[in-house]
């Protein structure tokens, strides 16, 4: 119909909308944030569906599942580690099944551009035993998102789309098609959705029964492409997602391609893999992320008479993101001639807090306050303020997962460390900092939590935060923190001395304190001004 320039993330979002989406839910996280950014924008313009930034990924998943149970098409998106947070409803929704089409988008971050790990969502697909897509370009992202809702409704199961950073954050024109309308409301299968053991056993058996049909569906999917080279049987390539692009890029200008299978759906298209492997002596598996396909191919004993090459064999690095250069080398092609590096030693330019960021002032005060407490530990969380781990601040000592700082602080305090502090942003606190604080408040744990209230989810570009300002203070009080130990500071250079004093006082109080550092993210202030 028409061409639109879209990020890979946006192509998924638009595909979902055109498939008749009624509701989308997400929690921000790179590289998935742009899916919901796009949906929120479009929903604002068209009012045709609901698009919501949820409190966290688990909640987002449950909201989407509820919409699906009501018969409507729903989408939930997050970054790969967000699926960990949502893993409970995710795993169980494979047992309950979906009613209206349910698309789960999990965006992996090979190379850890903006993440704590490189986990590969395809393992979750296998774990839950559902159907999944892995697009290699923007058009596929759009087309697969559209198709995913039909597949979800056909199997009565959620369908996952595995995205990677490279495609999520690449732009290209996409050809869109006629949109269709949403489903009607339709409630129903209480016995399927109530996972009492007797229901769950029946549903799980049904899920297992569906597996061969899913494999067949995968084998027949036009997104999986098998091409055999009849004259050269030495090497075959199995490539998935962006790995396929790098394969084709590396072979540009070659007269003939080796036999190859492009894998775009899971469970793996078994018969196609057998055909390819049967045809060649050696198979090179090109996949971004973990050696997921390669490991299944190899099993414990390998394939008799065949060589399997990939990350496990050392043909590719096991960690990091694939690149056209790495794939070119693995295919045995010489590097292209290039200009030599300049020779000048290039200082790195790591990310840093914006000039005037409120977090900088909080860290300065915190460092000063802790000067005379050598054995202290500051547990941090995930957000812009994690950059406080770097010079010039060197102010925090952990970053594990969303909300972890509060629970970890409690653990360290329980075993006798003092002073113990937790530093957590307002959005992260709402995401999963409230629950651990509830326990710490009940026990009046000897620790000091500093909530950095910049009134937004800053790191991912300024999404709404649900626990900020007055509301945040009421939440903290409501959780059970003693009112006299809920303190507020305004992190500004002029308040430096005062702020140090407040932090020191609360460290010296041998129970639970929460200090809220209130000042808006300067990027948000700027946005409002322009």
């Amino acid at each position: 119909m028409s061409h639109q320039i879209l990020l890979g993330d946006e192509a998924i979002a638009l595909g979902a909308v055109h498939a008749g989406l009624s509701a989308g839910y997400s929690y921000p996280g790179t590289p998935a944030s742009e899916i919901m950014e796009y949906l929120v924008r479009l929903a604002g313009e068209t009012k045709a569906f609901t698009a919501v930034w949820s409190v966290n990924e688990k909640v987002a998943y449950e909201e989407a599942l509820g919409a699906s149970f009501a018969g409507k098409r729903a989408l939930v998106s997050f970054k790969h580690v967000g699926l960990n947070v949502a893993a409970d409803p995710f795993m169980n929704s494979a047992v309950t099944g979906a009613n209206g089409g349910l698309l789960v988008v999990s965006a992996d971050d090979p190379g850890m551009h903006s993440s704590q790990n490189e986990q590969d969502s395809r393992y979750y697909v296998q774990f839950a035993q559902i159907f999944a897509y892995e697009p290699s370009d923007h058009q596929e992202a759009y087309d697969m998102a559209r198709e995913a809702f039909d597949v979800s409704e056909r199997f009565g199961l959620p369908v996952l789309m595995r995205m990677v950073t490279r495609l999520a954050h690449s732009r290209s024109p996409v050809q869109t098609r006629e949109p269709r309308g949403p489903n009607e409301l339709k409630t129903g299968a209480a016995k399927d959705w109530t996972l009492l053991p007797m229901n769950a056993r029946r549903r799980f058996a049904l899920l297992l029964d569906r597996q061969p049909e899913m494999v067949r569906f995968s084998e027949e999917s036009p997104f999986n492409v098998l091409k055999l080279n009849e004259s050269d049987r030495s090497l075959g390539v199995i490539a998935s997602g962006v790995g396929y692009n790098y394969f084709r890029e590396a072979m540009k200008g070659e007269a003939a391609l080796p036999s190859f299978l492009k894998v775009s759906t899971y469970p793996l298209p078994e018969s196609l893999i057998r055909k390819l492997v049967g045809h060649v002596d050696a198979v090179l598996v090109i996949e971004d992320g973990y050696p997921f396909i390669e490991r299944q191919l190899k099993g414990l004993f390998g394939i008799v008479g065949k060589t399997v090459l990939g990350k496990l064999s050392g043909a590719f690095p096991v960690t990091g993101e694939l690149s056209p250069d790495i794939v070119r080398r693995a295919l045995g092609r010489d590097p292209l001639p290039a200009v030599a590096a300049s020779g000048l030693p290039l200082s790195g330019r790591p990310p840093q807090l914006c000039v005037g960021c409120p977090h900088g002032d909080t860290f300065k005060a915190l460092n000063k306050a802790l000067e005379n407490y050598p054995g202290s530990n500051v547990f941090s969380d995930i957000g812009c303020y994690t950059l406080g781990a770097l010079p010039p601040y060197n102010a925090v000592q952990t970053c594990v997962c969303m909300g972890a700082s509060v629970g970890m602080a409690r653990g360290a305090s329980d075993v006798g460390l003092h002073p113990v502090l937790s530093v957590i942003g307002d959005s992260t606190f709402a995401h999963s900092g409230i629950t651990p604080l509830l326990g710490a408040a009940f026990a009046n744990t000897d620790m000091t939590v500093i909530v950095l209230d910049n009134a937004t989810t800053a790191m991912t570009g300024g999404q709404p935060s649900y626990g900020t300002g007055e509301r945040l203070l009421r939440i903290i009080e409501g959780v059970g923190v003693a009112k006299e130990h809920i303190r507020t500071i305004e992190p500004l250079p002029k308040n430096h001395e005062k702020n140090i004093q407040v932090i020191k006082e609360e460290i010296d109080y041998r129970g639970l304190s929460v200090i809220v550092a209130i000042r808006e993210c300067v990027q948000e202030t700027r946005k409002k001004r322009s």
Partner: protein
Amino acid sequence: MKQDIILAGVGGQGILSIAYVIDNAALADGLFFKQAEVHGMAQRGGAVQSHMRLSSDAIWSDLIPKGEADMILSVEPLEALRYFEYLRPGGIVVTSSTPYRNIPDYPDIDRVLEAVRKAPRSVVVDSEKLAREAGTVKAQNIVLLGAAAGSLILKEASLLATIDALFRGRGAAVLEANLKAFELGKKAALGA
């Protein structure tokens, strides 16, 4: 016909606006393109780059292989150097001479510029001065785009139409400053 460009700079310098203009001009000119960019943590004042691929044929990889880049277009001279190995023999570097010093060990700027000039072809423009002259120091990215325009496979009219579309909503003064920034960059490149 193809052109592969590495766009480089520091988070916040407006690389993505350059990419936006090139993307839309490419669409108008009927070219295929893929443009990989950086979001998230690195945008906070870190080194950022975007791989911009234009072609009259379908494009496979979102990333430019080393040795395939026809151009490095950088809003910051040190950042231009970071991607030299992507440049093909005979490729061109178009960069600002204005250093962005947000790191303690920024090398001597003369040595940086000297290294830039070792590229097969280079165009170095004082984007800060020209942007100020155009009316806003924020338009350094568009100065650079202007400086590169003569070497791009895109029609100048398509670039200008997109600049117009991008800045029109921000008021006549901003639009005019950016159009002027483009012109000044273009002129500077001719003289460089």
